[in-house]
């Protein structure tokens, strides 16, 4: 029997597969499809202080081996997440859930984190300093080491839960940002968020998405994600949550060899609702094929 368990900041995962924020809602659309407890965990939709309607449509544009999204952080706001979504999650998911926190100011991040810190169901806070789809905030925090450090410090003071900072790939040197987050007390880093991209509508001769750009995800970004996980693994001592284009058990293994302790699956959920259980189911076979008996042993194994 192969051993797929990993430990993420002191919280045990039965396997490293975590559904990525924004591709899994609050779990409710997947709960009728399979037992969510098969998952290592899931990261719920980016949650902000106030409810957000998100961007005008269209919000999705197709790309080769991927998609652009410009959802704009549609979510019911942290109060409703706590009063309505967390109780509904409890009914379908017994494990600690990852809380994805988004914001437009340091104060936003802090007050959302404070409220979620008090929730027993929340296993980790994942601070999204890298959303490219909102005006004023979001990605700006993730593309500047000083600001990334400041967010980390402020949220660190607001929570005793494991603190994961989610990094933006839209930077010259991701290790600089990673080190700033480490220095200010992050417990782990997750990467990558989406890459800034653009598609045009040839009929209207205008951008397809309402604000022009959107965030690129899916298999197209896998090599970039692997490179960044690889670089950050060498730059910091923190555990990493790797993501970006992961669609199969072999991708999970590749991500872990590059340095990830756990692996998130995002876009794959959208085109195959059973992607996560399929990958989890494939894992033992893929491990056996590559002579891996214990997944923990391969974390960063390619370095």
């Amino acid at each position, binding site marked *: 029997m192969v051993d797929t368990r990993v430990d993420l900041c002191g919280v045990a995962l039965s396997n490293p597969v975590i559904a990525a924020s*924004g*591709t*899994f*809602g609050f779990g*409710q*659309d*997947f709960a*009728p*499809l399979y037992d969510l407890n098969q998952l290592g965990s899931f990261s719920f*939709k980016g949650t902000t202080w106030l409810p957000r*309607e*998100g961007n*005008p*449509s*269209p*919000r*999705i*544009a*197709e*790309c*080769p*081996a*991927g*998609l652009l*999204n410009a*959802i704009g952080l*549609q979510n019911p706001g942290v109060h409703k997440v706590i009063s309505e979504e967390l109780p509904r999650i409890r009914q379908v998911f017994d494990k600690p859930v990852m809380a994805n926190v988004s914001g437009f100011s340091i104060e936003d991040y802090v007050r959302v984190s404070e409220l979620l810190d008090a929730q027993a169901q929340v296993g980790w806070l994942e601070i999204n300093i890298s959303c490219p789809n909102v005006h004023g905030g979001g990605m700006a925090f993730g593309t500047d080491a000083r600001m990334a450090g400041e967010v980390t410090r402020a949220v660190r003071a607001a929570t005793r839960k494991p603190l994961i900072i989610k990094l933006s790939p839209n930077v010259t040197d991701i290790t600089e940002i990673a080190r700033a987050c480490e220095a200010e007390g992050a417990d782990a880093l997750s990467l990558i968020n989406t890459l800034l991209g653009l598609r045009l509508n040839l009929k209207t001769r205008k951008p397809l998405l309402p604000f022009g750009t959107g965030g690129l995800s*899916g*298999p197209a970004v896998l090599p970039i994600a692997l490179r960044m996980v690889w670089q950050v693994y060498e730059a910091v001592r923190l555990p990493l949550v790797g993501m970006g284009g992961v669609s199969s058990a072999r991708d999970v293994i590749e991500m872990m060899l590059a340095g990830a302790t756990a692996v998130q699956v995002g876009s794959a*959920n*959208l*085109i*195959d*609702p*059973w992607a996560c259980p399929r990958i989890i189911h494939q894992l033992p076979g893929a491990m056996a094929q590559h002579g891996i008996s214990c997944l923990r042993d391969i974390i960063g194994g390619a370095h």
Partner: protein
Amino acid sequence: MRQTAFTILENTPIARDTYRLRLAGDTAAFKQPGQFVNLSLPGYYLRRPFSACDWQKGELLLIYKVLGQGTADLVALRPGTRLDALCGLGRGFDLNACGRQPLLVGGGVGVPPLYRLARELVARGRTVRVALGFNTAADAFLVGELQALGAQVRVATLDGSLGERGTVLAVCDADSASDFCACGPTAMLKALCAATRLPGQVSLEERMGCGFGACMGCTVMTPAGPLRVCREGPVFDREVLAW
């Protein structure tokens, strides 16, 4: 929702750029007219949503129009090709909300789901009127099939080459109708809602990431808050949209 591997039985033109795609496979997931499939096309990352035009045990009928690259490539797929699809998606037309003399209004590629809807309404003994709008006679399809169901069908074309000249509104006998069910371009749906105060259900189109509620890609803003076309829709009560 169910994932089904369909096999193409037939993929033939029925109007200009418009094809009838008959698929063999499990259709048990379809419960309501107006529900859709999300079809995976070889070489494309995202699936393509198409309304179920009709279905029976083991067989699904779609009608699609070539609009972009994906549908253009679909034309080339031959019988025997397997296509993966997510089935039975969305909330369709609520037959219980339909009155005794429902008016079905379809424009362009919004016409296909009305076929199943008409069939079920006729089966329930309703007097079904159908108003169809196309650009030109060459684009028209399903007219004879809808008549064969026993529906009263009127057609409008923008150039007058078939039926009345004008938009579909020109052939909407809203006066004698109890309510309406409509599917077509957003502009048509809004014009229809502006033209009549009848109760009605409208089926919306939106670009989709997933088609089953996970991504918030297909949200439409309503007074009741943001709703997902793929999950709370594609069919909405006009009251919900406040159109």
